[in-house]
């Protein structure tokens, strides 16, 4: 456009210019251009959200035109598909039954899980034109696009079997990519009969069958929270934290409040690493009292408390605010993961992943790609980094602590295996009855080059070291040993 100006250099600007009209011309031109930009932006960014709105009749239109696509596991197994029953009626089939109930979800009654998250892809069809044409000629529906997930059927099976009849949740991820390999929540259900059983599930408020405990269950973190307390202590004493010493006599009294070690243990003289490895409550209550509460609050926010997690599926937000006004009694409870705080297994898994991945968090995700019926990729999801939850040095210190939990602490059942593991156990007391606790484990393996990261919670089972760690072992074995053998 500059060229044009050169071609007509003799602009006589002083003549016949009407700056007022020019101003109005520019004003409206720019106004309409910005409106065009807005329309392009709005239509492109709201496409999926709007098609899923129940007031949008286009969803029904697409369903009438396309057959809902299938959902595949990472190893190519069908997790959900639409088939015709004897009467030629379409039914949604889930070949693995209850196994993937929460993560794959259901496509009826408001939808849940991947059926809801990927609804847009499943009901749209990018099938090749020639295929569409031949189906059109036969009066058949077009095949919807298929969703390829990151899920591993073997790990899912191992995790679910290991959890057994217990209520609880297990999530298995790849810390270096954020791919979610397994997501188990018990009690589970059969997605293919969920519509018939709907009223039953709604009435049964006690067991929360339809709740995905991995993403929406909020549990007291118990001793797993010591990861966060430790991180804060290391931040405040980066060079001297290893000089920490404490004499554990089994309980600590501060004013009216008393904190006890689990099952009345007395740990004696402990340093920082041993406090963590043995999960010494009294020592951590002591550490907690020494922390700068404002900075602790900042660290919590950095570790994704009080905000939406960087994931594209539904989840609960864990709320925990600590500031200058937090009283000592609360501080002691918070430091050992008791009190009011609740955390989702998903979030604890993300923090563990960040530690395993040298501080950098990869966003957890469930969908690798979307392909049309001919197998051509129409949408691909690549691993993406969220950012640093902690520095590399801090992560290295945390890794050392978590390795000590296995070598000399509460997760000794993971010691002496063909691979090395690291993690943290927890026994989160809940309710009013003393001694009832959820068993936690969050950790990763191999310690020197983390491949997978698991987070386990078993409701009301007891000590994490006794109940959750063996499940972690079975998952690590399944992933790290069995494929090679």
């Amino acid at each position, binding site marked *: 456009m500059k060229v044009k100006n050169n071609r007509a250099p003799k602009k006589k600007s002083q003549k016949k210019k009407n700056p007022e009209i020019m101003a109005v011309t520019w004003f409206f031109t720019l106004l309409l251009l910005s409106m065009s930009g807005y*329309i392009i932006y709005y239509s492109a960014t709201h*496409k999926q959200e709007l098609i899923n709105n129940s007031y949008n009749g286009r969803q029904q239109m697409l369903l009438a035109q396309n057959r809902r696509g299938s959902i595949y596991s990472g190893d190519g197994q069908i997790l959900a598909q639409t088939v015709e029953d004897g009467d030629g009626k379409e039914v949604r089939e889930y070949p693995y039954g209850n196994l993937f109930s929460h993560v794959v979800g259901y496509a009826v009654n408001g939808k849940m899980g991947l059926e809801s998250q990927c609804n847009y892809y499943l009901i749209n069809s990018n099938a090749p034109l020639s295929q569409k044409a031949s189906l059109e000629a036969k009066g058949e529906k077009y095949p919807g696009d298929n969703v390829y997930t990151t899920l591993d059927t073997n790990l899912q099976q191992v995790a679910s079997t290991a959890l057994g009849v217990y209520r609880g949740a297990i999530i298995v991820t790849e810390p270096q990519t954020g791919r979610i390999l397994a997501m188990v929540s018990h009690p589970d259900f059969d997605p293919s009969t969920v519509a018939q059983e709907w009223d039953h599930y709604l009435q049964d408020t006690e067991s929360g069958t339809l709740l995905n405990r991995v993403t929406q269950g909020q549990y007291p973190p118990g001793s797993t929270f010591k990861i966060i307390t430790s991180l804060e202590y290391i931040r405040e004493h980066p060079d001297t934290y290893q000089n920490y010493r404490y004499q554990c006599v089994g309980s600590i009294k501060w004013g009216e409040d008393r904190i006890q070690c689990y099952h009345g243990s007395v740990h004696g003289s402990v340093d920082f690493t041993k406090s963590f490895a043995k999960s010494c409550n009294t020592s951590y209550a002591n550490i907690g009292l020494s922390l700068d509460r404002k900075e602790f609050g900042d660290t919590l926010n950095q570790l994704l408390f009080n905000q939406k997690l960087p994931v594209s599926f539904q989840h609960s937000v864990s709320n925990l605010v600590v500031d200058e006004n937090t009283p000592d009694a609360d501080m002691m409870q918070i430091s050992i993961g008791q009190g009011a705080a609740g955390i989702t297994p998903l979030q604890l898994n993300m923090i563990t992943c960040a530690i395993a991945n040298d501080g950098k968090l990869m966003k957890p995700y469930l969908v690798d790609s979307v392909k049309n019926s001919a197998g051509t990729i129409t949408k691909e999801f690549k691993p993406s980094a969220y950012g640093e939850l902690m520095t590399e040095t801090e992560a290295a210190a945390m890794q050392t602590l978590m390795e000590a939990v296995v070598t000399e602490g509460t997760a000794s059942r993971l010691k002496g295996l063909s691979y090395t593991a690291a993690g943290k156990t927890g026994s989160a007391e809940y309710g009013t009855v003393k001694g009832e606790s959820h068993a936690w484990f969050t950790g990763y393996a191999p310690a020197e080059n983390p491949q997978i990261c698991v987070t386990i919670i078993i409701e009301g089972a007891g000590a994490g070291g006794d109940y959750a760690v063996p499940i972690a072992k079975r998952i690590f074995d399944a992933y790290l040993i069995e494929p090679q053998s």
Partner: protein
Amino acid sequence: MELYVSEFSKYVITLLITLYTYECFAVFRYDNEEARNGIYIRQNILMFAFHFCSFLVICFETGDFTYLFFYAFQQILLFTAIVLYRMMYPKANRLIVNNMCMLLSIGFVILTRLDMKKAVKQFIIVAGSLAIALLIPFLIEKMRFLKNLKWIYAAVGILALSVVLILGQTTYGSKLSYSIGGVTFQPSEFVKILFVFFVASALYESSGFLEVFTTAVVAAAHVIVLVISKDLGSALIFFVVYVLMVYVATKNLLYVLAGAGGGAVAAYLAFRVFRHVQVRVQAWKDPWSVIDSAGYQITQSLFAISSGGFFGLGLYKGTPESIPTVEADFIFSAIAEELGILFAVCLILICVSCFIMFMNISIRLNDKFYQLIAFGLGVIYIFQVFLTIGGGTKFIPLTGVTLPLISYGGSSVLTTLMMFAIVEGLYVLRQKEIEEQLRLKRRRRPDTPNGAGRRRPATERPVRADRQERSGRLARPSYDEDDDFIEDWNEPENEGEEFEGEE
């Protein structure tokens, strides 16, 4: 076969409209209408190709090839309009004629798809309106007394609006129209033109405070009657065009600031006093919370816009009829859904190119009365485009006005065609004036070689410009003048290039 046609045609239609839009701005590259001839012919070919292609899809999708008859009638009508304009007014600006016909054909296509009955009715009204519009440039030339009728414009305008207020029929809560002998009129459409003529005739000679004040009173009367009729969109159009015409007439930015301030206060009062204004604002801010009631239209419109993608779902492949009054206020959303976002944006750009051409014609007009008219009509046109598209896409609150030349509605299409024809008439008038001066000049100085006197000292210019302004017409026409005139059409070329870039 049908599937291939509909899939393939989506891209063809988008390509055709994109090329057409490109030519809309490419026009500004060339110095004279001769050189632009190729562009205009290409535009006509692209337009007819689009029209034909769209009706082919309609036939395939419906399986009813009788639509081709309807197409043939439309084709003949538009072709006749183009040819007749060319014959009757060889000096006419063909970009305006082409854009007018292009927008009409888009309207025919989408209306045929939405509602065949309404499309036929619209076609008949367009045919009549085009016949009227064809005579307007001729009348403009003859009716030199138009600038003396200012109180007649005001009286007729306010009277017509008041009649609707008292006797009119209520449509969607607003009193917009009344019927005479079975024909329904929406007077606020026609009064727009009268209003522009009123303001132009009141301010062209002198625009001191007194004149501005008296016109402000009349303008306020128009706006108030419209607000009471609950025709907020029209009220806003009258208000904006009034303020901007005063700005151009007085060259005083303070009037715009005062207008904006007054407008803000008035808008706030309207918001506090009128329940239906509150409902509109609420439906704009968060339509999802009132999706069952006030937000229903706008959310359905947003569903439509977001479902089409760049190339659209294809004609008959979407469900635009789920939007209430889609054929009038929300026709843009139907276009975006079935013909695609790219098409919709090209449509906006075509409207912008019309507007820029109007503004350029306005700048070139020496007679201030005519200048104000061209300016005012241009502003009404583009502001109405902005209100209807912005309202339907949640860019601004919904005001319920039509998309000129495309929406269903006889009063709207007749008014818009008259507006286009008036501006065209002013252009023809100006072209004839220039030609006349050229001839005089040649006769007076037959020996002067072409281009002589081109490089006169710059000091001479302001004097000449002054004289021109006072006399209201060219005091001393020259070759130079003519060159400038044509050359200055280049001005918006930069803008044109930018638009293409944005696309």
